[in-house]
């Protein structure tokens, strides 16, 4: 069981009209691994994420999470039952709600046994929310957001919003997290913080990661293995060192 990859995607294809955004891509993420996904702009990385996490329907292909076929599951079911969480390239937070509420919402569906139990205001329900609030506060401290925890998330900087998004994904003790450009547009200090947090979640909480990232230094420092997409196809796969030297990959980036 433990030798099985945590996530396996086979022959995934997705077209938008005439554009084959993802063309017959297969890859896997091992348990406890941090895997990188790189490629030029428009190479299909985000589409690949969407189709693997239920936000988009793939035209064909199969997604297996922890030994279970989850092809065709909805985004919310994959998150809730599969404990596979994802972030979005264009950072999103619940802008009008404060940081703490953002995190509590992110944890609720994993704590309540059914949809109907969420309508309860009983003692059990209140205890669950209290526990969620405590966990949210721990993560808020870790993310360095303690002083702004009661501010509306929309009032915070882009980097802080990325941290909120990341901390939210840690609320439900996930098995695997897919990050779409977590470092884009944030200052080096926060990049360091995000890198530290990814490493921490990976080492201490046993979360596996698939990370889309353009910053090659970051990729080299956190990923054991990298997959390269180009024009919807898988171009190469290997350690960051071999990928950087790969002639085809260099051409794809320069020629793109």
């Amino acid at each position, binding site marked *: 069981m433990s030798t099985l990859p945590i996530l396996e995607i086979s022959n995934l294809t997705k077209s938008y009209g005439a554009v084959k955004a993802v063309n017959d891509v297969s890859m896997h993420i091992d348990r406890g691994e941090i895997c990188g996904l790189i490629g030029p702009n428009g190479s299909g990385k985000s589409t690949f994420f969407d189709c693997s*996490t239920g*936000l988009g329907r793939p035209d064909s292909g199969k997604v297996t999470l922890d030994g279970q076929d989850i092809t065709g599951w*909805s*985004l*919310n*079911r994959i*998150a*809730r039952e599969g404990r596979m*969480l*994802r972030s*979005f390239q264009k950072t*999103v*937070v*619940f*802008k*009008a*709600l404060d940081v703490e*509420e953002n995190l*509590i*919402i*992110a*944890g*609720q*569906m*994993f704590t*309540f046994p059914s*949809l109907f139990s*969420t*309508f*309860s*205001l009983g003692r059990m*329900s209140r205890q*669950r*929310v209290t526990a969620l609030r405590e966990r949210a*506060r*721990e*993560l808020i*401290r*870790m993310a360095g957001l*303690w002083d702004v925890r009661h501010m509306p998330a929309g009032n915070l900087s882009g980097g802080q919003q990325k941290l909120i998004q990341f901390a*939210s*994904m840690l*609320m*439900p003790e996930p098995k695997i997290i897919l990050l779409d450009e977590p470092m884009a547009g944030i200052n080096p200090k926060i990049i360091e913080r995000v890198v530290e947090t990814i490493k921490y979640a990976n080492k201490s909480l046993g979360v596996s990661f698939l990370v889309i990232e353009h910053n090659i230094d970051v990729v080299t420092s956190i990923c054991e293995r990298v997959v390269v997409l180009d024009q919807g196809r898988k171009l190469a796969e290997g350690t960051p060192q071999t990928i950087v030297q790969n002639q085809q990959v260099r051409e794809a980036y320069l020629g793109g």
Partner: protein
Amino acid sequence: MSLTQTSRETPLAEPSLEVRRRDLRLPLGILVAIVALSAPFLIGSYALHAIIIALIFLLPAHGLNLLVGYTGLLSLAQAAFFGIGAYTAGLLAVHYGTPFYVNLVAAGLMAGLIALPLGIPALRLRATSFVMCTLGFVIIGQAIAKNWISVTRGDMGLSSIPKPFFALGPASFTVSGTTGFYYLTLAVAVLATLAVWAIVRSPAGRNMIAIRENETLAESVGVPTWRYKLIVFMLSAVFAGVGGSIYAHYLTVVSPLTFQMYYSTTMLIIVLGGGAGTISGVVFGSLLFVGLSEALRVAPELRMIAYGFCLLILVFWFKKGFAPLLNRFWSFVGGVK
């Protein structure tokens, strides 16, 4: 499992620099309760009638607020469920002479159940198409009420719906007169307000707000948004149906005119004008808008013009309805400067 070493620290209680005055919220609440309970002795019967209508409309407005204010779904279907509730209660009372509370519960259930098959296709539509679709429900409801003559008696409607009565074993008690009806409606309105409060404070309420704020993000953290939207749509219908049942008993007639767009827009004005996503705003809104509309009946030729002007003032001066104003007032009463 502690994630950091610093997690033992407790946040320092910040010393309040604000000069606090006495907290007057409890006395004010008691005062409002006393006024509400003694209203029949303080105001004339026409004003009391206006308040009864306002309290009846508060019910569908509460339901609509769950939908529009908390879940972010704009619907015009409330009048349809209001009408369904009114006909359900009217038919039961006329044909079977059932007690008031039976009619009320049946009306709520009927509206909620009918909302299920309507909501399943409608909620798959995008925002604007959904609004059009809910508008269709009202029109279809009216057409059915007009044409299903064997049951609804068509345009003649149901008349001589009996006054609400309660039966407990051999004892029975009939509510007659405006004063009695006022207390009955007040009781139902207070219960409904508490119910909305409980729903909104529950974890489900937080999920509803998440759906309103960003549906895709809510999905991505595991919230089954589609099922929540369907449940809230049904709940909103239950509130409207209950309101309809009281309406039928109060007016003692139900006609196809119960299904009218004017009612849906009134309910929407109560919610948006009072303050979508707040409970106090909607309570205030129902008293203001329905009360105003009823009170202006004394000058029928000016009524709609005056009503229209009030809406314009609202739009330009209170962009978020009265809720922010009420909040400021409430914290003022609470002693915060």
